[in-house]
């Protein structure tokens, strides 16, 4: 009887999909390359919005204190034609682990003169989210929110920027993971 019940329990457990556990930061390590475009925000009509193409590279690797470093570079073409002039920007941030599982804090000291300068990262499911909040000396505030979700091919990235409760920019990117090891 006990054997029958045990077998039944095992069969049910195998049939029911396991709840999705959160990824670990090492699952995100690697180099990713891809492109995407800006999404319309506010009341701007789709016909009025030039969905600017962006090319992006993201490198995520381990750092001290069970943390990680993320380096991302973005190239925006000024015109639709290629070749075209382009704006490029590169950002680097390093995070250290905190006492909370899958929650990390930026190691960079706050910028002086700001009322608030806070950046943190958190992993939920397959998504690594990085949020930065800055409050200027005059009380204006800005939030940058990156969601990077692991996919079969690499990563889907979504960026949203808020200025004083208004979405001022939204970008979606599709990135492929390269074969290079980054550690």
């Amino acid at each position, binding site marked *: 009887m006990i054997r029958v019940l045990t077998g039944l329990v095992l069969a049910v457990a195998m049939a029911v999909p396991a709840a999705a556990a959160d990824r670990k930061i090492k699952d995100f390590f690697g180099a990713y390359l891809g492109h995407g475009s800006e999404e319309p925000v506010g009341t701007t009509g789709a016909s009025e919005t030039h969905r600017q193409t962006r090319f992006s590279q993201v490198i995520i690797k381990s750092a001290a204190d069970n943390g990680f470093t993320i380096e991302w570079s973005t190239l925006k073409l000024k015109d639709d034609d290629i070749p075209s002039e382009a704006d490029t920007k590169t950002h680097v941030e390093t995070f250290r682990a905190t006492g909370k599982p899958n929650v990390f804090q930026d190691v960079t000291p706050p910028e002086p003169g700001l*009322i*608030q300068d*806070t950046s943190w990262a958190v992993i*939920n499911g397959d998504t690594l989210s990085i*949020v930065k*909040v800055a409050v200027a000396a005059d*009380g204006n505030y800005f939030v940058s929110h990156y969601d990077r979700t692991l996919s079969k091919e690499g990563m889907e990235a979504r960026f949203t920027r*808020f200025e004083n409760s208004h979405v001022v920019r939204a970008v979606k990117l599709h990135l492929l993971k390269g074969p290079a090891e980054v550690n």
Partner: protein
Amino acid sequence: MRLSIALGFAAALVASVAQAADRKVDEFVGRWIGTGQATEGAGSPVATQSRDSEVVIERVADGFKVSWTTMSSDLDDGSKAKVKASSLTFKKTKTPGLFVDVKSGDPLKGKKSTWARITGDALTINQLVVAADGQWDVTTYERTLSSSDRMKLLFTRIKNGAVARQARLEMQLASRSTR
């Protein structure tokens, strides 16, 4: 003729500068009551609740205190109503028109970070909360004087990168006394 035109121009210029100056806290002091609606969704917001609210703004040492009580009723079922009351006390900073909540702290250490500022006709209060699991939200109350006894309230909650809820209310001054 030219002198009168010049004087008229100068007067208009002075008047426009005076209008553009930031309001003072005293202009917001009083007991305000009003009504409006809450919506959800950013792209095509849908009205979900009616809201009735009372706000009391009063002077305290080195700053001001805001207390508000709101009754929210589902539009689909008016019998389902919730009442919520809150209050915040702000002290002034070195920057004119900028105030910080006396209980404000580091959001990554479990504290709420709350600040207020007066720009033009608006008194805006922002509050940032970061939960233990890293989820965040920013709540903004923007109270704009449209006259000495009328105020528009715009409430916005942004949650984890998306506008989750907004509410718009029209408020009227019930009394300058806050007792």
